[in-house]
């Protein structure tokens, strides 16, 4: 199952609300800058990335982070990896199990 842009956005908004305490209503502005507009710190961003990795069963390399400046950047990136990768992880934890071996 491949998520639509809208589904990815609401999934991301939920993750950001949980990890950084920023209301989902603020996150849906696609052009919002993650650092300057939303005030998300680099450590909070690490938490967000890990949550996305778990949700989508992918690994997001550190090199990709520098290009993820706006909400739109993240949504587009996740759309891209979806098409090349494993798709959303509805079971929840398989990526973690791989990492543990």
């Amino acid at each position, binding site marked *: 199952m491949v998520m639509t842009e809208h589904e990815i956005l609401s999934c991301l908004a939920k993750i950001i609300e949980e990890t950084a*305490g920023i209301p989902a209503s603020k996150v849906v502005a696609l052009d919002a800058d993650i650092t300057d507009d939303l005030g998300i710190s680099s450590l909070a961003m690490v938490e967000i990335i*890990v949550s996305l990795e778990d949700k989508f069963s992918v690994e997001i390399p550190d090199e990709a982070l520098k290009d993820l400046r706006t909400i739109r950047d993240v949504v587009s990136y996740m759309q891209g990896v979806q098409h090349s990768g494993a798709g959303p992880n509805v079971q929840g934890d398989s990526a973690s199990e791989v990492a543990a071996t």
Partner: protein
Amino acid sequence: VSNRPQRVVVTGLGAVTPLGDDVPSTWAALLAGKSAACTLSESWADELPVRIAAPVRTDLAAMIPPHQLRRMDRYEQLALIAARQAWQDAGAPQVEPDRLGVSIATGLGGLGSVLDASDILRKKGWRRLSPYTVHMFIPNGAAISIGIELGARAGVHAPISACASGAEAIGYGMDMIRSGRADVVVAGGAEAAILPLTFAMFAVMRALSCRNDDPERASRPFDKARDGFVLGEGAGAIVLESAEHAARRGADVLAVAAGVGYSADAYDVAKAAPDGTGLVMAIQQALANADIAPEHVVHINAHATSTLVGDASEAIAISRAIGNAGSGMIVSATKSMTGHLLGSAGAIESIAAICALRDSMAPPTINLEEPDDEIIAAGINIAAEARELRTGSWPAVALSNSSGLGGQNVTLAFMSA
């Protein structure tokens, strides 16, 4: 700034303890002689020789939003709540950020978080650790979080001295104001280490009470049948302020933080010096530092954890330091009710001493059924029931003693406002 040291006053109190969600509920429970000890329901306790503790019952998640909660160890959460209470109690003063400091310590730091992180590392790999693990682990993490919330720029500190940490942090806060570095300091201690490893570490030292079938009677300082301490958790914070700053804003002064004495036994890594020499020095220095004669001491909140050597050594130390001047002085050991809050003990017990001065009432030492021979020989007056303090001579002074593993002693002297 003149060269004369600033007089320091207490203008706010905050606490989350095994006995209550705040200072009023904790103080009421102390006066009522309630024990907070209970049997642990966690399955890990079944494999340990000790299955009793005094946990905090407060729902921390109702007080801190989830995204903030997940970035802090439990000891930091407790410290933040206590500091917020103290700050509100002081009337949320307007302070220049450069003149506001924090001195909040802990004995063990974020031990629970580091154990969790170690499990995650083993099972899921390094990328799954919280990026806040370092913050949750370090023993100055609570001071940092409180400093950020209050915008305190005069310095955030966490002086560590095992179970004397909370008291030492208050002493350090007083020193910050007296030396002119700050006008206001939020000071105290926090601990949250009701964990299998902590039980194992203290149990292997034979430091914990094994009275598993009777938790409420397990912590019995100065009693002949005492067999070790009951592990507790919690946080206490007080707002220290220069008398000048407090007067300028018309703050209610709860007590004068009159003096502090520090010493070390230089004797053993665990056992207190049996003759109490180190603690005698701390008590005498606190009085000298406050410029107060021992006759004015009406109350001592003892460190007394309910261990064999520690309690006896403290009774001797009190007797040696105060001598005959202490004939009307009442000693209380509130750990009989709260359990031993390790790095926050000195903070909670300072708050109890301040409340005792305010109400002229000493809390009881519960479970003191038959005082030990050494304690009787020391000739100190321990309150088994809540008792009225001697009044009439001014100023009235209450001391709070703290001693940490390794022979670190801190005595704080509070004077009626």
